[in-house]
């Protein structure tokens, strides 16, 4: 009797086609952005002129390099602080013994996801404003006489972005922590390792995939952050997306907006490319452990 050998990848084509379609659409849009980047901007018109390289030469001006540097710095800081603040929450979320503690942590950690970026950003304006929560608290405590400048600063933008990014990081880390085999930790403890050592030598290395993917995700999405720097930065702190908006939808300079978009894409991909060797080294170290 003949047995029918199941195909190794039965749904491969069915799943591949939508991906190819999405990739095709993405490439078509990218191609359009690319052709715009080589066109001449005509002030007072929605049309673009002939081909030029001038748009690319313009990005060498200090303002654009400074915005680019700010974007990368804010993205790195946001990714790092989000990781540092989210890890303990994710750890407690997974390891809490009581159900109600877990439920409370889930509500506190995940609810902000449902409030939307604009609402959360406005909340930060109320917290960081001259007469906001922080300044009022410090003033009432007699620690300051004049309000601190918290809004329209890199600090304010980073704080708001960290809070905005935390729910996603918590979900990613909680998934990684929940996959850690508790027997490994018990074995380490049985061999005499104190709790901190167990965490440092066993738990943390085993959750490294979550740490790495979370950091990359937050870094990449902060690189394209728009609403938070727009509202909290108030034009004083610009990130690359804000510049694209100002050039494209405010100045109608679509060619230069296209150049800035491409630059943002290249910097994001380049940064991720630079991170890769470090990640590989880290993964090798974890594997050795």
């Amino acid at each position, binding site marked *: 009797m003949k047995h029918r050998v199941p195909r190794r990848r039965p749904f491969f084509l069915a799943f591949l086609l939508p991906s190819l379609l999405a990739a095709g659409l993405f490439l078509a849009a990218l191609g359009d952005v690319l052709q715009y980047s080589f066109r001449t*901007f005509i*002030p*007072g*018109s*929605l*049309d673009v002129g002939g081909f030029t390289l001038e748009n690319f030469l313009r990005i060498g*001006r200090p*303002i654009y390099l*400074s*915005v680019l540097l700010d974007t990368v710095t804010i993205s790195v800081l946001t990714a790092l602080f989000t990781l540092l603040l989210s890890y303990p929450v994710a750890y407690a979320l997974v390891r809490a013994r009581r159900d109600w503690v877990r439920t409370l942590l889930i509500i506190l950690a995940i609810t902000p996801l449902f409030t939307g970026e604009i609402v959360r950003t406005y909340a930060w*304006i109320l917290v960081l*404003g*001259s*007469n906001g929560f922080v300044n009022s608290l410090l003033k009432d405590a007699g620690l300051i006489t004049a309000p601190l*400048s918290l*809004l*329209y600063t890199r600090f304010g933008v980073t704080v708001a972005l960290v809070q905005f990014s935390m729910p996603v990081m918590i979900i990613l880390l909680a998934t990684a922590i929940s996959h850690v085999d508790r027997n490994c930790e018990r074995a380490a403890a049985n061999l005499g390792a104190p709790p901190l050592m167990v965490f440092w030598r066993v738990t943390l290395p085993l959750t490294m995939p979550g740490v790495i993917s979370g950091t990359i995700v937050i870094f990449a999405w902060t690189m394209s952050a728009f609403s938070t720097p*727009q*509202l909290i930065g*108030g*034009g*004083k*702190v*610009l990130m690359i997306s804000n*510049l694209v908006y*100002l*050039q494209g*939808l*405010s*100045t*109608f*300079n679509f060619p230069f907006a296209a150049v800035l978009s491409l630059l943002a894409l290249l910097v994001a991909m380049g940064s991720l490319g630079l991170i890769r060797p470090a990640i590989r080294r880290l993964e090798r170290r974890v594997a050795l452990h």
Partner: protein
Amino acid sequence: MTRWRLTAFAAAALLAVAAVPARAQDKLVVDIWGGNWRDGANEAIAKEFTKRTGMPVEFITGGTIDRLTKAKINKGHPESDVTITTSHVGYLYFSDGLFEKLDMSKIPNAKDLFPVAIRSPYTIGLYSYVYTPAFRTDLMPKGYKITSWRDLWAPEVKGKLGLPDFDPSHIIIVSAILSGGSAANWKVGIPLLEKLKPNIKTFYQSDATSQDLMKSGETPVQVLLSINGFHQISQGIPITIAIPKEGAVVGIDAIGITQGTKHSAAAHEFINVALDAAVQAKLCDLYRCGPMNMHAKIDPALAKLPGVFTTPEQWKSEAIVVDDETRAKLLPVWKDWFTENMMH
């Protein structure tokens, strides 16, 4: 016989159904901003237009740029018959062939307008407002007042000023004027503009943000849209809106007929209705702005407000008007310069 009747009934029903979309298409579509702008235009203009012509009006709404982009994409197959937008953005519409030339013989009310209302052969101003300095009386030192734009450079304003990021033209034009220049040779104002930097706290992105910043006291001094200021004053916020001795920078919202419309005659009539003296009075009462029809009988309380110009003398002494072509062509240059040198 019964079958014959049934067939006749079905045919009549089909005809009736087919007639519905035909009638539904017979409406005038007006492209405008949403919210109060749409509501005001509906209340003051559309109702009167429908009363006079029997033709219903439908509004489609969106932001200035979204609507412009959409109009460009739909060129030749317009979604709307009439477009209301800022006059210098109107220049972009007609320079890209998105507006049709107006037949002034079909707009008899145009003869009663202030000369400034005739923006171009394609656009007519509907109403005016100003961008001008304003401040929170309770948050500035006692006795502080603004009599000249130069007062924005005063040490009392350090770290308190809010400016729009979407349109820096007002402060650029004024800096040029204060430096002995004009909008066309704006670069003479650059040294003065650069001296303003320490006084700027932030840049607002929309009318809503402007109001938030004023309400919270984050920027107790602003160059703001007069209409926003009046609205906040009506809510009890202590704001003084100044008209400096150099004048306030005028903004005019204009109306044009979309190229390719199938309702050109009705669109002309809509514009004529919008410029009628009584309709203008109603529109300005709703928007808290200045009329374009010099015979419009404006409520005296409204006419007293700063930046609501109702006489030729006011237009001469209190208004800084820049032509739409200069503004449309220089705005991108101004924004670039402003982004690169004043922001960040």
